[in-house]
């Protein structure tokens, strides 16, 4: 039966009769990229756009991210959508700290990326002041397509990440710069 369902393409490797060989990095990268469980950390209007992204029309499930995790323990991507006040910053950092490796962060919208229009004493001027960010999604608020694009960028990161990256000194130094053990 003909079907127009698009399957994930196999990574580069050697194929022969009855076998397929590829590197562990690529295999795990493919698996990780297509089952990124998001942890929505929504505080304002970007969160509403994220709800639309999760809904049937834009359907984030197409990217293997249909299972939002409201505990950081099983989450892979932290989606920070909305203005983060300075009082919220320790909460955000604690949520990030309690996520299991490997973990990625998307800053959705201008506020999460840079503080946005709230150039004021009470608002964190971008979440990268407290936690490392992998992908920034511009917009005020961004459209669901942009959020999906952000997720696809994280998929690319996950696909191409070396399995040793999280143990490398560069990554340790990055975490140390944020005072993360």
């Amino acid at each position, binding site marked *: 039966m003909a079907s127009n369902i698009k399957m994930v393409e196999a990574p580069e490797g050697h194929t022969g009769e009855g076998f397929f060989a590829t590197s562990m990095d690529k295999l795990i990268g493919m698996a990780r990229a297509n089952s990124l469980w998001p942890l929505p950390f929504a505080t304002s209007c970007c969160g509403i756009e994220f709800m639309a992204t999760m809904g049937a029309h834009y359907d984030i499930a197409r990217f293997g991210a249909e299972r939002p995790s409201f505990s950081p323990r099983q989450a892979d991507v932290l989606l920070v959508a909305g203005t983060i006040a300075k009082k919220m910053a*320790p*909460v955000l950092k604690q949520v990030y*700290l309690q996520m299991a*490796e490997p973990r990625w962060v998307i800053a959705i919208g201008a506020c999460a990326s840079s503080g946005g229009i709230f150039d004021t004493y009470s608002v964190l001027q971008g979440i990268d002041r407290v936690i490392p960010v992998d992908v920034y999604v511009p917009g005020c608020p961004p459209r669901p397509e942009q959020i999906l694009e952000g997720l696809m960028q994280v998929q690319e990161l996950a696909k191409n990440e070396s*399995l040793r990256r*999280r143990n490398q000194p560069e990554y340790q130094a990055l975490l140390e710069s944020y005072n993360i*053990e």
Partner: protein
Amino acid sequence: MLTHMESTTYLPSDYLPVVIQLGLALAFIVGTMIVTHMIGPNRKSEKKDEPFESGIPVQGDARTPISIKYFLIAIVFVLFDVEVIFLYPWAVNFKSLGMTGFIEMILFMGLLLAGFYYIIRKGVLKWE
């Protein structure tokens, strides 16, 4: 006759496939857990290992004594909840079960109501 004999007499060795299946299931679970703990990246710190409380500091200990009243009420609720579940199929099949079913239900309900009388006498339902 022969097939009948075959199906009723089992030697202990006939259960070997079950044992093998159990062993494989156990080995797969334990093996997977060990391997994933070894190959996956992990990071442990004091804050990471704290209980997740939506990012806010943990207040006190979850293992504090709770009044027995909550537990008793919950158990009594479950008991009578199950009783009601049994009443529905009985009501649907009331005619076909006939007198036997009626007597059985009376026995069942009588037993439960005796328990109900007991807990009322014990003062379980007195909240204050």
